[in-house]
């Protein structure tokens, strides 16, 4: 970090902890970016003329006489069309060997959209995955996480979703990505020939965890540039938000804050909401859609991280392995898209809502029949048929490796209905039944 004119330089640190350092300094702003011994740091506390800095990379080796340089600005990102196709670290510096980008410098973590200026989301997003498009349809301006155990292929699913949507820009915010996953994304984006519409901000497991805290704001600042300035449809991918929350907990712990549920900071809800609420349908036509990943521990959604997330996001996509068919499926019971009502049957075929509900209801009957079988009770003919339907439904529609159009999903569902049930059992509005029932 080169010292520039008008920057304040200090060399007397009075207190050091693993993640913070304190020194006497004047005229310093809250949240101002500084460099401690060349490492990026941010002001987190001011007490009289004492300033406490959070050093993102940790303070190992920082000495009491190390140089502290204040930049006079909060963390910034340069935005322009040159962002496209590039990979950056948590500070917005290129990590792909390419040149620095030119552009307007904007402070990250901008204020919120005025609620009365928002528009109601109404554009369908298709992914080809029936567990999403059919049962949990996504809409532009929505925010939705995948809830998945660490062993589920969530990053692959998310990459599929990203590449199949018609988004103008995809912004990837990788937090605590394994190096392998980072290379996977990089390779995939390269090969898909989609690199020019992708911007990536990456923090890998090799980078210091606290740096992750900057990733969502960086990614969303870039997203806002394209959505607000260029009126583009932007899809933001954030993986893995659980690791982001863990980093929040580390910092709050180092600052002696009292932890609340599951050792998470009391402000977890607001911290996560600040990120997710950036999803918006903007008045001039641009939009920001957020698809995130929240990894779970053993499917436990009552843990503070998924729990707070669920209260903020507009639904969740729950991945689980269906052992009957040996595939990972989008669980139709625990998944939900709160905004699907805005598009299904309106932007998709008229029979969509009823087919979706009937299929899920019959799948629930299949689950009940299986429990009955497992408990050793006799199965009725109907029970037997629902179990067969359940397996086929899971394989042909719920599995994440399905890639078909919405109409085809609906037709497949009608095929399965006709194969296993009579019309009374399916119980869909008669007019639809007359039109679509497969004989």
């Amino acid at each position, binding site marked *: 970090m080169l010292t520039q004119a008008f920057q304040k330089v200090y060399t007397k640190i009075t207190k050091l902890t693993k993640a913070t350092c304190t020194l006497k300094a*004047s*005229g*310093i*702003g*809250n*949240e*101002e970016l500084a460099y401690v011994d060349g490492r990026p740091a941010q002001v*987190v*506390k*001011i*007490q*009289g*003329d004492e300033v406490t800095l959070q050093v993102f990379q940790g303070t190992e080796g920082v000495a009491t006489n190390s140089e502290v340089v204040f930049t006079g600005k*909060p963390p910034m990102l340069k935005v322009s069309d040159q962002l496209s196709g590039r990979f950056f670290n948590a500070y917005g510096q290129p990590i792909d060997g390419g040149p620095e980008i030119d552009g307007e410098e904007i*402070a990250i973590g*901008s*204020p*919120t*959209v*005025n*609620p*009365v*200026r*928002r*528009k*109601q989301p109404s554009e369908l997003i298709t992914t080809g995955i029936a567990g999403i498009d059919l049962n949990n349809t996504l809409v532009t301006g*929505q925010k939705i996480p995948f809830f998945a155990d660490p062993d589920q292929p969530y990053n692959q699913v998310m990459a599929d979703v990203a590449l199949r949507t018609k988004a103008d820009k995809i912004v990837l915010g990788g937090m605590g990505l394994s190096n392998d996953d980072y290379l996977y994304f990089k390779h995939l984006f390269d090969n898909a020939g989609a690199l020019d519409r992708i911007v990536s901000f990456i923090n890998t497991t090799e980078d210091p965890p606290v740096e992750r805290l900057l990733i969502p704001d960086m990614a969303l600042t870039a997203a806002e540039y394209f959505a*607000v300035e260029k009126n583009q449809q932007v899809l933001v991918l954030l993986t893995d938000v659980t690791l982001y929350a863990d980093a929040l907990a580390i910092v709050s712990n180092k600052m002696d*804050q*009292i*932890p*609340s*549920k599951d050792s998470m900071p*009391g*402000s977890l*809800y*607001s911290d996560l*909401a*600040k990120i997710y*609420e*950036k999803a*918006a349908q*903007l*008045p*001039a036509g641009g939009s920001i859609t957020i698809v995130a990943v929240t990894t779970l521990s053993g499917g436990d959604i*009552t*843990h*503070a991280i998924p*729990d707070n997330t*669920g*209260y*903020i996001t*507009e*639904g969740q996509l729950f991945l689980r392995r269906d052992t009957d068919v040996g595939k990972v499926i989008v669980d139709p*019971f625990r998944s*939900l898209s709160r*905004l699907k*009502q805005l598009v299904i049957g309106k932007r998709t075929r008229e029979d969509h809502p009823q087919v979706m*509900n009937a299929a899920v209801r019959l799948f629930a009957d299949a689950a009940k029949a299986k429990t009955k079988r497992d408990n050793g*009770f006799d199965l009725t003919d109907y029970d037997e048929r629902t179990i067969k339907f359940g397996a086929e439904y899971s394989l042909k529609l719920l599995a994440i490796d399905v890639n078909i159009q919405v109409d085809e999903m609906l037709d497949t569902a009608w095929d399965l209905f006709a194969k296993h049930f009579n019309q009374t059992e399916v119980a869909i509005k008669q007019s639809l039944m007359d039109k679509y029932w497969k004989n």
Partner: protein
Amino acid sequence: MVKGKISGIVANLLTIQVDGPVAQNEIFFVVLEDGRLMGEVIRVTGDVAFGQVYESTRMLKSGTAVEFVGHMLEVDLGPGILSRNYDGLQNDLDKKTGVFLKRGEYTEALDKKVKYEFKPLVKAGDRVQAADWLASVKEGWIDHKIMVPFKLEGKWTVKSIVGPGSYTIEDQIAVIENESGDVEKLTMVQKWPVKKAIHTYKEKPRPFKVMETGVRMFDTFNPMAEGGTGFIPGPFGAGKTVLQHALSKNAEADLIVFTACGERANEVVEIFTEFPELIDPRTGRSLMERTTIICNTSNMPVAAREASVYTGMTIAEYYRMMGLKVLLLADSTSRWAQALREMSNRLEELPGPDAFPMDLPAIISNFYARAGYVVLNNGQSGSVTFIGTVSPAGGNLKEPVTESTKKSARCFYALQQGRADQKRYPAIDPIDSYSKYLEYPEIRDYLKGKLGADWVDKILTAKNWVYRGKEASDQINILGDDGVPIDYHLTFWKAEMIDFVLMQQDAFDKIDSQCPLPRQKYMMDLVMEGINWPYHFDTFDEVAPYFKKIINVLKQMNYAVFNSSDYQKYESEFRAILNERRAN
């Protein structure tokens, strides 16, 4: 004016060195080159005040000047509040410029240019006191009363009042004087500190009327009283917001104040988008005309979120003083409690359970206590009915916010994950939920007068059947379908009939979403007929398909216009089905 300088900053908590007296909860402004940031004193130690800023504190510096205004957080009360969209500090969101909220941009709550048609209700020489009606102006479809400011004590004499005509809210409309010769010049607007209850009424009797909501799980099973309190706890995805929207659409109230407190912005957008299109069946006007929204969504500053519920309550209390029936909804009070927790944490107070402040139960109960049915000094009455939602962490009802609220609110509408998973909406737990008002003799008498002497017994009988149905279902699951007597199946299906026909309700259906009391009584009587019918079955597997038929027919009635030919057709179909299985 008392001034100070910032001496410390942690997140949105400031420590301020002050040069004079400051009050707890006093409002201050941080003076920046390009604007002013509002905040509130939350603790004072010697000449150091601790303040929470209602805005981002980014790049604030130690030594920055602060000015104290000498009063607590106040709202403007006067004509023009109705159908506005405010933030938690009563800034008119529609008046703000640009797509993004700008730090330090404060807008006028009321319109100063609009002229209101003014009709005086008193004349010079009349004796008045705080909250007495001086005049009436037309605000949309309501008669908005201009009142003697609530903060004035003692008796006053009207020295002068302007005649009928049109005036703006800033025009002087009256002069009053008290015995010690103090003179007050009045406009149509008064200010009131939001954290104080408006107490200028004659008395607050026990609630004695039911507030109809059109939702059967409320009106029939757990009635809400006019001026009552209730809360809706539920895990995410259980339908809290849909239920609150249903209440705000259908409840029999003059005005709705909806506080979106720390929730999703898109849900408020839904109200902005839909309400102007929906017609209030009672007035024939757009629903938006009776709705005021206080909107402090989850990513707006946390301190203002705490203020938002108080702003909503104060506005509701103000309209109550005009003799109106106000329904205040807050979604969600857990976010308010979390805002309190964040500040308590930063103040390094010793924490209570789950790191919430120790006085959380007291704060919640003080707030709920502001609701109520009141008799005004002029003998008229008004009410604030309050229903809040609670978002329990992990869906666990044993957490501090739910438990504290349970101590204060009189009605408990617990949303249950299991029912939501089965799409049994509204997912209000039929067994755990309760309305304490059902125990009030006044309310019982009211219901009996309206719906017949045996009404309360019918409710209790129906609830009991649901309970027995659950027991029967447990037994069937343990012993198997053929391991229990047919009676168990019968009990289970009778309970299902009550559940499907009376308890479940389609919030998205035009007709079913709004079910008036007489219709609720009619359906209850039909279902009771089905419960008391002498059935005959030979085997258990005849029971389920038969009751599914009954339920289907009764549900069709719920979807049909009351007493229409379709409705009557389904009713005779229902009777025919009953007769198929009559025991000899």
